[in-house]
């Protein structure tokens, strides 16, 4: 992966100036490259990583992983069914997998009831959905390479040879 993308993935707030210094490129080059990535849809956005475990107000934090078995459609395969499913705002991620089921969804809701209602009233009754298994998420340890705990501190001396 391009170093610029790598650096942005680690810290989206890093400035083009800093990237330029870290990579020995000039600032305009870096800016141009970022613009191009944004235009081409490589860089889709920049967001913060929130550790919801630490929030006082725990609202909106119920998540479920849902295995979905679907009936593929003639000529369209899984794509059309998947689209009907992932277009629901409750679905935050949707993957097509090999193995014993077809789609894996990550669904977010305000509380258990919201998520259950989504499964019972929207997902399961869909024509091409043959079955679902819902796993409610209990705790997150690591997400997208980020460990969701306070950083491991290196207990170094403040100064040494």
């Amino acid at each position, binding site marked *: 992966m391009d170093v610029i993308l790598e650096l942005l993935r680690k810290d989206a707030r890093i400035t083009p100036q*800093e990237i330029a210094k*870290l*990579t*020995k490129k000039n600032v305009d080059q870096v800016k141009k490259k970022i613009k191009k990535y944004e235009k081409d849809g490589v860089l889709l956005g920049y967001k913060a990583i929130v550790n919801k475990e630490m929030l006082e107000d725990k609202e909106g934090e119920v998540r479920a992983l849902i295995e979905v078995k679907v009936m593929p459609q003639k000529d369209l395969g899984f794509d059309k069914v998947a689209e009907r499913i992932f277009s629901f705002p409750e679905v935050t991620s949707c993957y097509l997998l090999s193995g014993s089921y077809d789609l894996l969804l990550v669904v977010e809701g305000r509380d258990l009831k919201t998520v259950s209602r989504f499964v019972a009233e929207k997902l399961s009754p869909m024509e091409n959905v043959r079955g679902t298994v819902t796993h409610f998420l209990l705790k997150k340890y690591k997400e997208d390479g980020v460990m969701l705990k306070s950083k491991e501190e*290196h207990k*170094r*001396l*403040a*100064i040494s*040879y």
Partner: protein
Amino acid sequence: MKKNIVSQKVKEMRPSGIRAFFDLVLGMEDVISLGVGEPDFVTPWHIRESAIYSIEEGYTSYTSNKGLVKLRTYIAQNLKKRFGLKYDTNEEILVTVGVSEAIDLVMRAILNPGDKVLICSPSYVSYGPVAELAGGQAKFISLKPGNGFKLTPQDLKKNIDPDVKAILLNYPCNPTGVSYTKKELGALNSIIEKHDILVISDEVYDELTYDFDHTPFPTLPGARGRTVYLNGFSKAYAMTGWRVGFACGPKEVIQAMTKIHQYTIMCAPIVSQMAACEALVGPRKPIEEMKREYQRRREFVTSRLNEMGLSCHKPDGAFYAFPSIKKTGLSSGLFATRLLKSKKVAVVPGTAFGPEGEGYVRISYASGFDQLKEALSRMEEFIKKN
């Protein structure tokens, strides 16, 4: 108690000129430190895990004086694979308590009273005192800032006399970050060969070489039989606290070193040796990631320093920058003390590494990027006011 309880030799050892400064740093809170001589990474998990496992399995005993056969085998394999360098597992490799112990051993193993060891200055702090404790004499080669503190063949030639038995090389270098290309080493090697001098080559930062391939000294033509090659796990694998390193060299020297080692240390800790095995055979991804991270910080730090007017050679390796602070008109010690007191940023005065370091400070970029950014901004403010 009798007076004069401390030996004459130890009394005569030069005290570290900057102990007081170190105490000042350690006594202060919320300091951003660019003064640390070790990685800011914690040892990669797979290595820590293997050490924990080895304790659970009951590996709590002594090992052979030379170190675990398994570890020596992996070291030999690793050197062969990386550099085509061949050492005999049984007779030419000794596992030590860090490179520090290996330096002490080799000095004691080779020096007779009156023998001189050439040591570059500025250099890592232990070389001189260890040579002298071993009964030898440290002869410092004064490196010139004009050459970016690189040892030149001329400087080397000038300093050789009949009493010089060995030369200690350290590349990539702490504190300057200087390293040498194969060609540069070749030029030094021909002089060394001509005068039949033993080379003690401390290459503990070898994995952190950025712009060219690292050349181990014993791979140079004719050098293997005249070189004691020292390396360890502290820097590349972020394992400073484990205290494990190794020496490879001619059978005669390794045997002599082992003799001292068996009486003084017995063996390196078994848990650390087990961890070192995992370091050598485990995934290299974390090591490569650390290197890449250092390399990026190096670009950032040198360009920021030059931008604020502290001229700084780009270091070839290790994780140190050694900028000149002469334009501030302050001495290294004063610069470091004032920077610490007014901005809470710690750097090491260049004089800690020899008188040639006057007018310079050592900046370690083994610190998180955010910290580096903040520390360098504070330095810039400090310089503007001075």
